[in-house]
């Protein structure tokens, strides 16, 4: 894993993207991992019975995808302080979910080097389905 340093980061720059495409098996794996066995994520008839068009991807799984995006970017010496997102749109199995992030602000305080980001998941139509923010610290070269 390549380590990103505070000095390497520019405000407005996009971080490396992470693409996901959930099979129904992955949704079941996630259900087992998270303990969320709500049927709208694996029982198509149940999902349709609630008015949904079909199975949907767990909101918290998209949150975890954004966590993975940040984990991969900050590297072993970076630290995630805070992150979160709202679930504004639905994503579906067998459909690409693009996880993206852009550096909003960087600053140093108390010997720590902070980076604020906008993060989100994006569906194939380019709609931000899970917009959020993150705060991380990165190591410095100095």
């Amino acid at each position, binding site marked *: 894993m390549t380590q990103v340093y505070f000095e390497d980061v520019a405000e407005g720059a996009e971080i490396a993207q992470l693409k996901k495409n959930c099979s129904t098996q992955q949704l079941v794996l996630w259900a087992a991992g998270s*303990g969320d*066995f709500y049927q709208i994520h694996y029982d198509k008839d149940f999902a349709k019975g609630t008015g949904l068009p079909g199975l949907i991807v767990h*909101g918290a799984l998209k949150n*975890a995808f954004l966590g993975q995006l940040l984990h991969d970017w900050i590297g*072993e010496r970076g630290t995630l302080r805070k*992150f*979160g997102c*709202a*679930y504004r749109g639905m994503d579906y199995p067998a459909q690409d979910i693009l996880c993206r992030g852009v550096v909003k602000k960087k600053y140093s305080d108390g010997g720590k080097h902070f980076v604020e980001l906008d993060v989100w998941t994006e569906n194939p139509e380019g709609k931000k389905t899970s917009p*959020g923010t993150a705060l991380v610290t990165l190591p410095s070269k100095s």
Partner: protein
Amino acid sequence: MADEFEITDEMRAQFGVDGTPWTYEVTTTSVRMYARGIGSDDPIHYDVDFAKSQGFRSIVAPLGYIGTPVFLPGKNDPTFGFPRREGGPRLNIPFKGLLDGGTETEYLDVICAGDVLEETSHLADLKLRDGPRGKMLFVTNEAVYTDKATGKVVAKQKLTSIHM
């Protein structure tokens, strides 16, 4: 019934009142299962020896995973697993539909397999909005996770659910 639902002062009076604390466990099996669920192949979430070689006490919980609530039949929700604790808010929500609204997590320490956490949770906010299918109730809970071994708060989380 749902169309007539209103947020009352009695409901607002429950803001900030912690329910009974609950134990959340972080195990090697649960960390690996969660990592498989997100499709991660980072050995830091799977290989104990590798994680230790990187300076961690065991495999590291993927971001977003803060343990699994201990399940006691009759005391946890059978679908979602969350505890139906005593002393927590009782809202009698009439809506049948339920969706996740959002998650915010503040990390104060790294969470690893072997950690046993005490979670306390309270109702933080209620909002009623008009949606395409009628009224929608946004319920926000705040949780604090404390490492039972050290007494240190390791994470704080804000969870919003949407009832409609």
